[in-house]
């Protein structure tokens, strides 16, 4: 008989939902429901702005999975963003309605990221960061040579023209909302699962995780693939809302800057961080957009300042030990008190 099959002396129950997380969960459901019906109440331009916001939010969620939980700083996730945009274009040119092309494009990026991970995982730390960037550049240069997809000049997505701009905007909005929800839910489910616990252990101490039996490379690969898949969601949403693609902008390293900014400001390695970061980023962008490059200067400066003086970001500072998590990721154990006193 092994140690762990002996009868327990302690009666304990494990609860995963705290009052905060249950409240947050229901508020989340309520917000989602409101957002679903929002097009009936608010104007077209607001809807388009929300779609724009969704694409940034998705990027932040995707980058956080990789860097925040997996400890891998990539500056090449725009590879999946660009490939996903172009996959939608390709499918639409071959008769698939763009909205239906979205899930296919996202899945394609997820699969593509598996072989790429074998190459990228040969590098660590700083080298991984630039290595992923080079891979993104290769994707850019290859895509720019495919004449049927518009080459270096880019192309327009025309198959949604047969719908009214209003309808197209609303459907794209819903697609974006679906991707946001799917991303958040998949990250939450991942983090609640065995893989998620292993991922958080790697985040805290890779060596100790390995000694506890965690297959570190496999778990990191899962994080990488999920991150790629989510970033692809942002790429899909960008082409659906902009209705055009151009290699230099679809594969722009600037998206990495945005991702890093949002996650750093919100709080790396927290579930809530990317959401807060995306809101801050979007607000900054709205506020400063008229000032041209100034907004990027401020963005960079804030990123530097946050790294140096607020390294845990907003949420990490509010909740340094991840105790008040808004999502039910944690395990709360209640020990029967009369038995506990025997210890």
């Amino acid at each position: 008989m092994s140690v762990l099959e002996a009868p327990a002396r302690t009666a304990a129950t494990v609860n995963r939902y705290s009052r905060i997380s249950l409240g947050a969960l229901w508020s989340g459901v309520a917000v989602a429901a409101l957002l679903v019906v929002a097009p009936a109440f608010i104007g077209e331009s607001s809807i388009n702005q929300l779609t724009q916001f969704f694409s940034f939010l998705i990027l932040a969620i995707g980058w956080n999975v990789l860097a925040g939980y997996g400890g891998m700083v990539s500056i090449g996730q725009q590879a999946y963003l660009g490939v996903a945009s172009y996959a939608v274009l390709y499918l639409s040119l071959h008769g698939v309605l763009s909205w239906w092309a979205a899930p296919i494009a996202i899945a394609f990026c997820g699969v593509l990221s598996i072989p790429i991970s074998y190459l990228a995982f040969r590098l660590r730390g700083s080298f991984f960061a630039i290595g992923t960037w080079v891979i993104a550049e290769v994707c850019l240069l290859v895509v720019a040579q495919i004449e049927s997809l518009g080459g270096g000049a880019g192309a327009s997505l025309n198959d949604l023209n047969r719908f009214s701009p209003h309808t197209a905007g609303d459907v794209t909005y819903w697609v974006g909302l679906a991707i946001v929800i799917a991303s958040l839910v998949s990250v939450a489910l991942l983090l609640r699962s065995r893989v998620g616990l292993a991922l958080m252990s790697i985040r805290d101490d890779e060596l100790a995780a390995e000694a506890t039996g965690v297959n570190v490379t496999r778990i990191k690969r899962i994080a990488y693939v999920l991150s790629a898949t989510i970033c692809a969601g942002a790429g899909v949403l960008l082409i659906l809302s902009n209705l055009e693609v151009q290699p230099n902008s679809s594969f722009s390293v600037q998206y990495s800057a945005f991702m890093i900014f949002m996650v750093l400001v919100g709080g790396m390695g927290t579930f809530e961080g990317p959401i807060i970061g995306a809101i801050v980023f979007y607000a900054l962008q709205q506020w400063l957009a008229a000032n041209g490059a100034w907004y990027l200067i401020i963005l960079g400066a804030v990123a530097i300042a946050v790294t140096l003086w607020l390294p845990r970001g907003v949420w990490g500072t509010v909740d340094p030990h991840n105790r008040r998590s808004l999502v039910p990721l944690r395990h709360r154990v209640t020990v029967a008190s009369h038995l506990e006193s025997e210890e």
Partner: protein
Amino acid sequence: MTNGSLIPHNLFEARNIVKRIGTVVIADGVDIQVPAGSIVGMIGPNGAGKTTMLGIFSGSVKAQSGTVVFQDQDVTSLGTAKRARLGIGRTFQIPRPFDKLTVFEHALLAVQQARKVSTSESHERAILAIERCGLIKLVNTVGGDLRLLDRKRLEMARAVALDPSLVLLDEVAGGLNNAEVGQLIEIVLSLRDEGISFLWVEHVIRALNATADRIVCLSGGRLIAEGSPAEVLEHPAVIESYFGSPAFMSTAS
């Protein structure tokens, strides 16, 4: 544990381990056996390479040559994680808790890596491991908030939660006071009684004195003594390896 008349079954065996780091010889043909159900202590002067040896046994360090056998299976080429899942737990000399995970989550992680069981059973197993290591009151505390003794207990709980047959202990008694060492000894003995074997590297001699069935002394890449705690600690070669040449023993007294 008595070495009765039957040949004891070896749970773990390291054969002819050779390891050099640069010009330093850690092991030059070392053999170590851990019989099932026993506690084997490993001592040796500072810098003898005991922690490196534990690394070779747990899979985090590659030896130049030699074979590591666990439960009659050659595990030499397997990595740390694989060996952990097979049932070799280890603790770290300087505790390495997961700062943001609770004690329960530490144990749960190990349970989940070791085998696939239902959610409720995995929770029970995690609680058991925590209970066995005397951490139940801190079950919801995150690793980053624990004191040293509790960190050491957490190291043990994390290893025990793997449901291991063998646990490699690296100086768990170091830095603890007498009473705390006493508590630790009790934990180890009760785990041994429940079927876990230990290979224990330790400088706190009294901990090994109270627990070990057998002690080996590693020095200069070789096992210079092997036997019961009393035999090994009185062994002239051991005393020399700790205190220099025996000349000191005669002149200073």
